[in-house]
């Protein structure tokens, strides 16, 4: 008879356990960094053509990818197929372009050019080697059928993304 109340008291004491929460924080830094090393410039070799080719007086944009971990990302680069800003155009613009591996920080990256996947105006490259790779983008706009571009300023945008695999 005497022990029961003691047991009951012990049960009650164990039931009132204090609870708490310990937060855990974490910050994820990007392991893939994209930097525009060189801004592109269109040359105007003939009235109907805008081109980034050096022979046409243009400058090809250079995009740098710094990848810290291999096999986690792919580079998706889109060359322009429209002007982001331009004078009013009343004819069709024919767009061509290309994305090539210009320089690498590791010899293994030289295979990127062979293994890249191209569709429409998009180029995808699996970044299978850690390090830095430089891509050059060429872009050419041909207006109408030998039609002169109206005078003014023309702007386009190359989109470069680092997509996690």
């Amino acid at each position, binding site marked *: 008879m005497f022990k029961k109340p003691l047991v009951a008291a012990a049960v009650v004491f164990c039931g009132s356990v204090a609870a708490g929460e310990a937060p855990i924080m974490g910050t994820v830094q990007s392991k893939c960094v994209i930097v525009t090393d060189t801004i592109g410039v269109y040359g105007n070799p003939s009235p109907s053509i805008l081109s980034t080719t050096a022979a046409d007086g243009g400058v090809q944009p250079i995009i740098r990818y710094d990848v810290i971990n291999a096999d986690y990302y792919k580079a998706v680069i889109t060359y322009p197929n429209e002007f982001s800003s331009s004078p009013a155009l009343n004819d069709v613009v024919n767009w061509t372009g290309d994305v090539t*591996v*210009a*320089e*690498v*920080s*590791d*010899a*293994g*990256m*030289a*295979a990127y*050019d*062979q293994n890249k996947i191209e569709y429409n105006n998009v180029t995808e490259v699996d970044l299978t080697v850690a390090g*830095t790779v*430089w891509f050059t983008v060429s872009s050419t706009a041909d207006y109408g059928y030998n039609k002169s571009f109206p005078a003014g300023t023309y702007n386009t945008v190359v989109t470069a993304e680092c997509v996690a695999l």
Partner: protein
Amino acid sequence: MENVLPAQSGLTVNSVFYRYTTVKNPLDDMIVHVQNEDALGSGYIFRSSDDWSGLPGNTINKLIGVESIPRERWGNGSIEVEGFGTVENSSVIYSYRYDTCFQNTVDPACPGYIPPPLPTVDAFSDEELIQKAMEPENNWNPNKEDEERRAFVNAQKRKLEKALGGINSALMTAQAETAAALFFAMNPVPVSYTASLPGGVYEETIQYSSEQLQDNSKGRRAVFASQLLHEEMVQLQYRGAESTGEK
């Protein structure tokens, strides 16, 4: 590497950056070694290899950190190609650093500076110094003194000529410019010779308001009167002709 890295005590190389372009058939095997011999031992103090086998040629930029290797150990550098292919447009850049206070006997501003010991010369034990001191080269010579005085006067004259001719300072040598500065510091030339007069632009201050000028009625009358007189004089000749019957 004697002509690549500066001869600075305590210099260490902490990274090597190299760049080159390979020209090759993608199917060929090719390994490129960028290397530096160990100047104090055998083998290489730095060697980085890039395997281009089965890959197309491209340009490589590579930065490799090394653990502060002293300058003395960096021997001859080379780029060696193993396999098939060539390397073009190559460059290797060494990043280095050095402690300016590495030798504590050079810069008094460095902590723990130890001044270099002064050279001790025992004049009495040096026969050459004793002989020099005994040579009669300091004997008084009146002719020599006159020559020196004339040389001094001539030198002063030349300085003066240079200074006066140095007003056009653009044509002066640095030496003459210094002499001119010293000369002008003595203020022998009036300030107006060299001082620039304050200039400026005198702007137009008078302004005429645009108003419509009225016709001069008195003038008009005078002109009308003279016109009448002129016409009367012209008509006189015809009157004379009519009276004489001439046509």
